[in-house]
Each structure stands twice: as structure tokens, then as C-alpha cells.
């Protein structure tokens, strides 16, 4: 009996020593899919490439840890994190409430965001705004910009697709504007082109093609590219719930790559535009 207890306590003590060592984070293993360009993909030599591979390396450099990437099939990507096959998921994973029930997320680092389009030369087009605003993390300057946006659009008619996050935004922020809802993005685009509404709000990517087309020639993007709050928290790094220290490290590193423009540079390099947030 005594022997058994002795062994058990020895095992426990050893276990504690090992766990304590593991928490210093000298190396971080990052799981990714490797088949989702330009976020993360594999080149013909079998090397992982993409915006998130560059981002991951940069974050690790700033966290002063050594990084290794592990390719994992998307279907098993969260279970394998929880098992400990790797310590973080950087795989174009959107932060959603369902996923947040099982894993933690860092702050969002990229999202396409939502944008307004309007007729060239309209009030909205002629006022100046910051390029992008994360509604979850606004500086005084950006708060003022949103107030200005509300003011410019006061009394105007805004078109959105019905039952979307964009409709939620108009309802929550643009209380002085009239909202007109459409069943499809195409209907929205058509009414915008014919001038029946003053501005349209949707995912930035949803407007890009339309603005290039013939009927979109008189229109332009205006106002800030928005993310956060009703628009969702974007794409973040998935982490085990227990690794709160690693979460802190990643959040700090993301702050740092955002502040010095590295995040925008990586985005421009891989996406041809800035989708950092």
C-alpha cells in the first residue's frame, strides 16, 4: 500500500514538473489546412505557403518562440488541437459562437468586412473616412468617423439584403436613415445602379465585381470598410481553452504586426488588397 502511494505521488510530482516546463512556450506548433489559397496552401514541392503561413512566422518571431507548421485535414482540425497535436490553428477560421464553445480565439486579424457603395460625387463619397474601422476596437478618431457616417446618411435611403448582418448594422447604427431590403444581392445592385437608393451596404467582396461591370461605372466604394460587432469578429487564431497564456502572447503579437503595418503588407501581398482588421 505504502509503495503504491509512493509511486503515485512520484508520478504526480513528475507530471507537475513536466507541465510546468511545457508552459514556458519555447516552441509552438501551428495547425493549418494547406489547401485554401491564398490563406494557406501547399506548393508543388509540398511546402506550406500563403498569407497565414507568413503571418504565423512573423507572429512567432515577435513572440520569440520557434514555430512548426502541421498540415491537418479541415474535418479534424479542432479535435486535433484539443488532443494536442498542435497548439494553435491558423487556417482561415472565422470566429463563430459555436466554435467559441469549444476553443478560444485570438482577436481577429483579417476579414473582408462590409462596405458602402454610392454614386460618385454623392455626400457620402465626398466626405472623408478612415480606410477601415473595427467596431469592437475604435479609437476616439474612429468613433468620430462613425458619428460622421451616421450624420451624412441621416434621412438617406440605404439598401441591404434582408436578414443579413448588414441589415442589423443599419438598424443598430443608422437609426435616422430609411432601410430598404432586397431578396438578392443582384436586386440590390440594380436599384443602386438606377439611383433609387442613396447607398448600398454589403460584404466588400460582393460589390467588387459589380463595380467593374458596365452598370457599376457611375458608382464607387465610400466610407470605411467595417468589421467587428454585428459584422462578426473576422478570422482568428484558434487555441485550447486552457492555454490562456498563449492567447495573451498571440494577441500581443497581432497588435504589434497591425501597428507597424506588417499585417496590411502581408494582406496586400497575398490578396491584392488590404483585408487586415
Amino acid at each position, binding site marked *: 500500500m505504502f509503495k503504491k502511494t509512493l509511486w503515485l505521488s*512520484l*508520478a*504526480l510530482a*513528475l*507530471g507537475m514538473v*513536466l*507541465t510546468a516546463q*511545457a508552459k514556458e512556450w519555447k516552441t509552438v506548433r501551428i495547425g493549418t*489546412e*494547406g*489547401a*485554401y*489559397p491564398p490563406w494557406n*496552401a*501547399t*506548393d*508543388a*514541392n*509540398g511546402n506550406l505557403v500563403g498569407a497565414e503561413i507568413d503571418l504565423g512566422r512573423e507572429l512567432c518571431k515577435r513572440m520569440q518562440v520557434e514555430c512548426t507548421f*502541421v*498540415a*491537418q*485535414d479541415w*474535418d*479534424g482540425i479542432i*479535435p*486535433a488541437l484539443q*488532443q*494536442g*497535436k498542435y497548439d494553435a490553428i491558423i487556417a482561415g477560421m472565422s470566429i463563430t459562437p459555436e466554435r467559441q464553445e469549444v476553443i478560444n480565439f485570438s482577436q481577429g486579424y483579417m476579414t473582408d468586412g462590409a462596405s458602402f457603395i454610392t454614386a460618385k460625387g454623392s455626400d457620402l463619397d465626398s466626405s472623408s473616412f478612415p480606410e477601415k474601422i473595427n467596431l469592437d476596437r475604435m479609437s476616439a478618431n474612429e468613433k468620430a468617423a462613425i458619428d460622421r457616417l451616421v450624420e451624412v446618411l441621416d434621412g438617406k435611403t440605404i439598401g441591404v439584403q434582408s436578414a443579413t448582418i448588414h441589415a442589423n448594422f443599419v438598424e443598430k447604427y443608422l437609426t435616422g436613415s430609411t432601410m430598404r431590403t432586397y431578396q438578392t444581392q443582384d436586386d440590390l445592385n440594380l436599384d443602386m445602379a438606377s439611383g433609387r437608393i442613396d447607398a448600398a451596404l454589403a460584404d466588400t467582396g460582393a460589390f467588387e465585381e459589380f463595380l467593374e461591370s458596365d452598370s457599376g461605372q457611375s458608382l464607387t466604394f465610400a466610407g470605411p470598410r467595417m468589421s467587428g460587432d454585428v459584422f462578426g469578429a473576422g478570422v482568428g487564431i484558434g487555441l485550447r481553452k486552457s492555454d490562456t497564456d498563449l492567447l495573451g502572447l498571440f494577441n500581443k503579437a497581432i497588435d504589434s504586426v497591425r501597428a507597424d503595418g506588417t499585417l496590411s503588407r502581408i494582406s496586400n501581398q497575398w490578396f491584392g488588397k488590404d483585408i487586415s482588421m
Partner: protein
Amino acid sequence: MEKLAFGPNGWGDEMLLAMLMTLAVSVCSLLLGTVIGTLLAWVKLSGPRVLRWLANGYTTLIRGVPELLIIYLLFFGGNGAVMFVASIFGHEGYIEVPAFAIGVVAVGLISGAYSTEVIRGAVQAVSKGQLEAAHAIGMPRMTLFSRVLVPQTARLALPGMGNVWQLTLKDTALISVTGLVELMRQAYVASGSERSPFLFYSTAAVLFLVLTSLSERGFVRAERWANRGASRT
């Protein structure tokens, strides 16, 4: 087509390597499955009652649930089990069980369940009169086993095992979920990265067909060889 080139700019060499990986997993799984099948066929035919129940349970369970489910169970559950056992001995942290080993065990277990029934049927098909004759002339048990039973069982099991081989070969596609770079996973990664799914999935289909049709010819030859002494009608 240049996407399939060999060398640093094409996926040809990667696809070929992945095909070899598929072949390696299949061969190891079939070997494991044959060992399991032989043991369990023996248990089912003349083992103690408790073992017989267990063997019946195994074949019913494995043949009755989807293969993908077994692979998920082993991949996520198996790793957890290994770590749990290790944690009892005081080892904390992650232990990587190689995806290759998990794949072979998973597909081998599936293949074993089917082989069991094939081998059991083949043993039962060996004419009883021959065994009785061997007993009558006083042949020792081991000689009876190696000279009479095994050669004839092998001959009779060969067509059925050919079927099991083809199933096993295709089941390996399912272990792509573990991240092991076999043919299916490589085709998925390449088609996603190059954005040309049709090209890479059809290439994978052709490579699978190469494997199955070549091995089919091998089995036909083996059957002809094994049947060389048997009566033709």
C-alpha cells in the same frame, strides 16, 4: 498538364509518392488483416466459446458500422487512450502516434473482419474426406495442417481475398482525414492549392485504377497458379 510535371514546379512526383504511400498502407493493412482473419477464423471454427463470442462481436461490429467512423474513433480516441495510459505513468503532454500506424491499424481491423469470414468459408470448403483420410493414415496434426489444410484453404480463399484487397485499397482513401499524405489527401491538397479539382481528382482516380487493375491481374495469375493441381471442369 504542366501542373502534373515532375520536379519542383509540378505535382507529378508528389502524386506518385502519394500513390506509393497508398500502396504501402494497403499492403500493411492487408497483411495485418490476414493475420487477424486467420486467427479469428480458427477461433470461430474451433476456439473456446468465450473467444468465439468475442470474434463474432468483432466481425459484426466492424462490418456493421461505417469505416470512416472506425477511423475517427481510432485517430482521435486511440491517441487519447495512449496519452491516458502514459499519464498514469506520469507522462504529461502530447504523444504523437504516427498517422501511418493509426491508418494501418484502422484499415487492417476493417480488412481483418472481412478476411475472417473469407478464410472461415475457405476452411469449411476443404473436403472433410481428405482430413479423415489424413487421420486414417496416422498423419501427425502439424503435417495435416501444413500439407492438407493450409494449401487448400489458401487456394479456396484467394478469390475472396482478392475482393478484400480491393476494398482495403479503397478504404485507405478514408485515412486522409488523419492528415497522412496518401493519394486522396494529396489530390485534395493539390486541387485546393492549384484550384483545379477536376485535373487532380481525375489523376487520383486514374492512379487508383492503375493500382486496382494491376493487382487484379496479379490475383488472376495467383489463382491460376494455385489451381494448377485442382481438377478442371
